[in-house]
């Protein structure tokens, strides 16, 4: 970064909020997907919407690429600073601006940690429903950018369902208001369109979300199976029985062993092939009946054991194992590639079998932990990045797994986003015409192409260029 640009950024946000020291930049060279590393040329940490707008305006006029970053928990490399981009961090924008209890809504800055919002809302009997597994660290700005999911999205839906309004700094620095509860302009749904745009359309600096009443009660069970396919079939059975649980989560034997060997041990037996967590929530009345029906379905489907959590502590323990599964895997291999794909729920057993076969064929350890109710798979490929040959097998196996999911009518990412990692797969699932249309909308939002370049769209995908085509 040249000294003039640096001086202008310092003038906008103060000297303490512009990081250029190499050691400090190291923290930002990777995100939750550790096999990619790109050191940013600087990190800027604005403290307000106005400051962020000034920063983006300066970078735009200097023609310098930039990328927004929250907590850096993303799993597709979406917040990486490709091409010497400058990171615009939202760390200081961490205030809950408004908690509007009668209207069940909150207005927050993008750096607010997901779980902190529910913590603030729960004394008022409210909660923020989308709960990514990283909710104790990930930020709402990142959740909006990725349209994040989570275990309870089966019943409650993903992030975009809850985002009702946004204040966005466009890639040239201008601040715009989109949507907002209580206003309806009848125009296009730009709030929904911005959601999941992976930081490529601008940076959200204020986010208005809808909150829900806290569920009065919850019931959780853990069903153990001696095959992954049987657990997958039980999931379809529960849905086919007419139930919509709050969550249906599966862990395979590899994951269970990793969890049990870690500090997050939840008391799962290690000699089973799959564990299924089923949770119902809502009005307390009727939850016991629903849980009993699901328990019976699991037993009919070949569960070797079903444990019902007796109280809040046991529930929390069951969930701790599930939510910390990714962290626990650090014990079994130096590196982990968390894959993310969705298939129609009814195809789960078949697809799980094929994923196992691919892992075996490539001699890779694959640990599955996933949102089975949504058909959202997360095969975790364990490897050592220092072993180039193994890395190459991971790459090839990943691609085959994506192909299997697409073949089953699914898609290449359910909640982690395309980022840098899945650009190469996008054309497997989208036609050239759709990719071209996506390049066009990117150009509409970011004509200069400075806002998170090198993400989402594959190389070579461009809007139609000829004048008469425009």
């Amino acid at each position, binding site marked *: 970064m040249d000294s003039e640009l640096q001086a202008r950024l310092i003038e906008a946000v103060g000297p303490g909020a512009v990081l250029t020291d190499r050691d400090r930049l190291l923290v930002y060279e990777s995100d939750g997907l550790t096999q990619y590393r790109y050191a940013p040329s600087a990190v800027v940490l604005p403290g307000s919407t106005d400051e962020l707008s000034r920063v983006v305006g300066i970078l735009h006029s200097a023609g310098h690429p930039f990328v927004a970053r929250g907590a850096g928990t993303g799993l597709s490399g979406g917040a990486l600073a490709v091409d010497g981009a400058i990171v615009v961090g939202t760390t200081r924008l961490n205030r809950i601006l408004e908690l*509007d209890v*009668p*209207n*069940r809504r909150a207005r927050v800055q993008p750096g607010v940690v997901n779980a902190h919002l529910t913590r603030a809302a729960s004394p008022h009997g409210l909660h923020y429903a989308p709960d990514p597994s990283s909710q104790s660290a990930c930020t709402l700005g990142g959740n909006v950018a990725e349209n994040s999911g989570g275990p309870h*999205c089966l019943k409650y839906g993903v992030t*975009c369902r809850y985002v009702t309004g946004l204040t966005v700094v466009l890639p040239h620095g*201008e601040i*715009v*208001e*989109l949507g907002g*509860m209580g*206003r*309806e*302009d*009848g*125009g*296009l*749904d*730009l709030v*929904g*369109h911005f959601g*999941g*745009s992976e930081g490529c359309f601008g940076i959200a600096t204020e986010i208005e979300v809808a909150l*829900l009443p806290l569920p*009065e009660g919850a019931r959780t069970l853990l069903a153990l199976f001696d095959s992954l396919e049987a657990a997958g079939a039980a999931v379809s059975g529960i*849905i086919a029985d*007419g139930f*919509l649980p709050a969550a249906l989560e599966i862990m395979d034997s590899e994951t269970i062993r990793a969890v049990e060997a870690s500090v997050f041990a939840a008391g799962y037996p290690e000699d089973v092939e799959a564990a299924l967590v089923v949770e119902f929530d*809502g*009005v307390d*009345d*009727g939850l016991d*009946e629903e849980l009993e029906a699901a328990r019976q379905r699991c037993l009919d489907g070949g569960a070797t054991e079903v444990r019902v959590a007796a109280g809040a502590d046991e529930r929390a323990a069951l969930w701790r194992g599930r939510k910390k599964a990714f962290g626990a895997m650090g014990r079994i291999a130096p590196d982990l590639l968390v894959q993310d794909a*969705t298939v*129609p*729920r*009814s195809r789960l057993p078949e697809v799980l079998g094929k994923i196992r076969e691919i892992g075996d064929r490539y001699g890779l350890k694959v640990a599955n932990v996933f949102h089975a109710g*949504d*058909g959202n798979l997360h095969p975790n490929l364990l490897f050592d990045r220092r072993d180039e040959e193994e890395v190459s097998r991971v790459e090839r196996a990943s691609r085959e797994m994506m192909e299997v999911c697409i073949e089953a009518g*699914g*898609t*290449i*990412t*359910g*909640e982690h*986003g*395309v980022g840098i990692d*899945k650009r190469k797969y*996008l054309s497997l*699932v*989208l*036609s050239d*015409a*759709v990719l071209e*249309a*996506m390049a066009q909308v990117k150009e*509409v939002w970011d004509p200069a192409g400075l806002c998170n370049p090198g993400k*989402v769209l594959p190389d070579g995908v461009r809007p*139609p260029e000829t004048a008469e085509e*425009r």
Partner: protein
Amino acid sequence: MTGGRPDPEPGVERIQTLLGGAAAREVVLPGPGSETGRCLEVTPPDLDAVQALVRVAREERLRLRPVGAGAGLHLLPPWGSGPVPEPDLLVSLRAFQGVKDYEPADLTLRAGAGATLDSVEQTVAVHGQMLPLDPPGAGEVTIGGVVAMGTAGPLVTGFGRPRDQVLGLEMVDGRGRHLALGGRVVKNVAGFDLVRLMTGSRGAFGLILGASLRLFPRPVVDRTLWWRVDDLGRAARMGRRLAELPFTLPALEVQDRVGQEGLETSTGGGGEGEGAPAGVMVRLLGSESASRRLERELRNAAGAPDATLDGRASADAALSRSRVEATGVTSLLVQVLPDRSERALEVLARALGSNRLERSHVALRPAAGTLRVWGDELVAGPEAGEVLGALEEAVREIGGSVRLLAGRAPAEGRMAGARPSAAVAGLHRELRRAFDPDGILPGAWREGWR
């Protein structure tokens, strides 16, 4: 308005030849917002025909308007003033019928744009499932219409907006490109979200051929509790009280007399308070135990309901309310924060005056802050423009917005309408241009609004 545009006749003839005479008929342009006239409606039989039609429309600079059940796109564009751009040709998507890829265990299906909500509902009901979309117009509304308009009904409280139920869609855009967007799985973030951009875009980007939708298990209980109330304001207060209970109610509505007619019919009428000027309805959808519990809470908060409808009767009454909301020459949509619902109703009464209000009909969703007003004479008369202008100002003062959905041109001329910032207007314009560079699909847009 047509200055500089070529004569549409030769283009229309080319399309007629292309599709064959059997696929074309002359119809009266629907909708009170239009300068009523006649227009040719064509029904392309398949994807190839739609693409060929769009190619000719581009070459001949024809304006197309997609039609489903005819309930939506004649409605007024949201911004600016001036009439709806008249189409040169109506394009019916009724040939795109049927339900595909329906695997009940997946709780998803794909439906043609021309399929009605009723037909989809019947298909999924057999498997104990439901499609929680209830826009005004009830079961006659087509899937294409739901996607194009993106209009929610009372079930929005419990199930979310249409945009949350549309998983994917298939369309031919204004460039003639066949776009298969999204997918048929419930979680999908592969690329930018064009599905949400298209949902509610009022036909501005392309002709929608079909959509993949999310389904829900049909609850064991479908029960409507109904309280007759002797005054609309009091009903609104009661509605807010129920909205503040610490539960998510699937649907909560406050209606005036006309909205209750379906309920009177279902219950056979009679009893104390029959023909009451207002009512509060709560629709419960869930398990027997949960519904019983919610009913207890509602009774504690609002007293015993005047009637309880179960099963088919509950669903039919909801359809009847939805159908009645799509009637009327003029309709308004007032949107405020939910806790300002009662104030919005007061503002409305003051601005319209009691005479006008009594001749119109009102439906309020107190948990969403949405107020719909409709009637044949809502804004009739020479002073209508002034009335609407005053209403708009008063609603703005309480932080809300008002929009004329359908209405006579002289009346709407006085409303400022929502004014997007230049930057937002620019985004709309450029997004539209990306998909429809020749402006053959004016849908949501007025001439010169920018």
